[in-house]
């Protein structure tokens, strides 16, 4: 017995001392302060954090971890969304059927549930994150700019959820999008039913009409249809996540650069 354990122990040592192991983990066990620094510096995922942080800012009482949770939800949604893309085809013929199939027979079709509930949860956590930041006055100098970035991220979150809402192509989806997108028709100057649009005329030609107004740009058609589905799909899967990821990078970077998690000035 003793021998076996000793052998295991030396095998473990041999592993941790091998070139391979050392090339991956640049530091020893995170028990010394030096290694605490090293782990934060050498790990790409952890280096978003500073090495040390104010005690108040680390406490859940203060941050509620809402920003972190939101980011984690974004990762969960990216992962499940990626998987869902393997089974979902954004066409009017198949979209609905594919969603049925996800529920009926696709192995681990529960991915769709995780994706949907995660999306709802993310909207809530984004709100609460903003709420917390406001309540602690953390938007005040020097963090004004980052608050602005955060507001845009909030809008992107809503848009991501909104574009995803259409994809199941059921009654809930198309009518929610129809209702939601009809407002674009009333954009001043840019929507057919917007104020002052009627003034935009060139002879008899209405420059803004149902075939080219703001709503058309959103839907890719005069009413929610095949083009809308494709358009929303592309936005949902590529356009908006990219924009969000980019702004998130800015957001996190600025958290660090603006003095870390806020605290009393």
């Amino acid at each position: 017995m003793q021998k076996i354990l000793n052998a295991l122990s030396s095998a473990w040592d041999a592993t941790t001392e091998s070139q391979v192991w050392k090339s991956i983990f640049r530091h020893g066990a995170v028990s010394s302060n030096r290694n605490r620094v090293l782990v934060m510096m050498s790990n790409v995922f952890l280096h978003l954090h500073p090495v040390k942080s104010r005690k108040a800012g680390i406490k859940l009482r203060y941050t509620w971890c809402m920003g972190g949770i939101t980011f984690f939800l974004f990762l969960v949604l990216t992962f499940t969304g990626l998987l869902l893309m393997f089974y979902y085809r954004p066409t009017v013929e198949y979209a609905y059927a594919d969603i049925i199939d996800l529920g009926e027979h696709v192995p681990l079709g529960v991915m769709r549930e995780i994706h949907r509930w995660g999306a709802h949860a993310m909207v809530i956590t984004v709100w609460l994150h903003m709420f917390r930041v406001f309540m602690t006055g953390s938007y005040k100098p020097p963090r004004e700019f980052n608050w602005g970035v955060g507001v845009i991220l909030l809008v992107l979150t809503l848009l991501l959820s909104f574009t995803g809402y259409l994809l199941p192509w059921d009654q809930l989806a198309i009518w929610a999008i129809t209702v939601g997108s009809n407002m674009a028709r009333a954009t001043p100057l840019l929507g057919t039913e917007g104020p002052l649009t009627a003034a935009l005329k060139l002879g008899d030609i209405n420059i803004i009409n149902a075939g080219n107004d703001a709503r058309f740009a959103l839907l890719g058609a005069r009413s929610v249809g095949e083009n809308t589905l494709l358009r929303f799909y592309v936005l949902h899967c590529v356009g908006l996540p990219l924009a969000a990821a980019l702004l998130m990078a800015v957001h996190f970077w600025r958290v660090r650069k603006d003095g870390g998690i806020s605290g009393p000035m």
Partner: protein
Amino acid sequence: MELFKNLINWASGPTVLFTLATVAFVLSLKYTQIWSKKVAYLGFVVMTAFYFLSMFDPNFYLIVAKPDNVPITFVLFLVAFFTWYSLYQGVENDKRIAVGEEVLEKQEQEKVWVWPDLVYTELLCMVLLSIGLMVWSILLDAPLEQPANPADSPNPSKAPWYFLGLQEMLVYFDPWLAGVVFPTLIVVGLMVIPYIDTNPKGNGYFTLKERKAEIAIFLYGFLILWVLLVISGTFLRGPNWNFFGPYEYWDQHRVEPLLNVNVSDFFWVQLLNRPLPSNPFLREFLGVILTVVYVGVLPVLMARPKDKLPGFLKWASLHGYYERMGSARYYVGVSLFLLMMSLPIKMYLRWAFNLKYIVAFPEIFFNI
């Protein structure tokens, strides 16, 4: 029991609910001692009991248990909890400031290692959240209704829940305002907050006293004009966008009067007892004046010191702010504030006078 349900149904009506919520909001900021642990426990017990008992009502259950409405229940509880939590901490800090102590956050300025203290809690959050999400997903199937049918719109047709505040605004404003201008202004308004809020205090810690006006305005916008409208839009708006109490059956055939009149009708028809003038500008002149006064003249007036204002407007003087903020910040801030307040104002005008439009130029889709 029936009486109680009827009472709740009555209290959920838009007028009553909105008024009650506004009054409660104002009182809660005035008597800050209610933000205590005891009240929180009590509130939690009452809300949970209300929810639990209401589940036995089939109509309540039908609406609350709809899969896509489940997040709204979370919103209800989470927003309530965090509002309490932030204000509770703010009130605690205020007490400390009052007796000259440091705020809690300031006492913990000492720096600690991120590994393991922060990283560990983050990991725990991830694990717990994953568990929560998986359990939620196993227990509750995502909704899938009938296949899309462009020819048959379900009644009611609702936007996704987080946009129901906007959809609710659409009841009171034309789409170009509620659907385009206001959302844009909400986003812009949020973004300019750091630039118009010049109060140097309350940066990085919870407080209420030191930022009372900012917090009051923000909370009113967030809690009453957004979250409350989302919740009522989800749970209380039924077929034909009629209001239904939480215990009422959503009857497709229920009819409610929708007799809306414009300011021009009040002025020309009811006051002067003559038909509307055919010239639209003459027709709408009163509404235009009112609007211009509200958005253009009122901010200027409010910037003046109290003694230079007519008596009935003295209370509204914001001269202090004007002085402190400078004119640019002041005007941006006040305009945004007035626009925000235009929603409750319009709501009350609607409920009180069935007012539809203050200015109505249907010819060019320009209605306010």
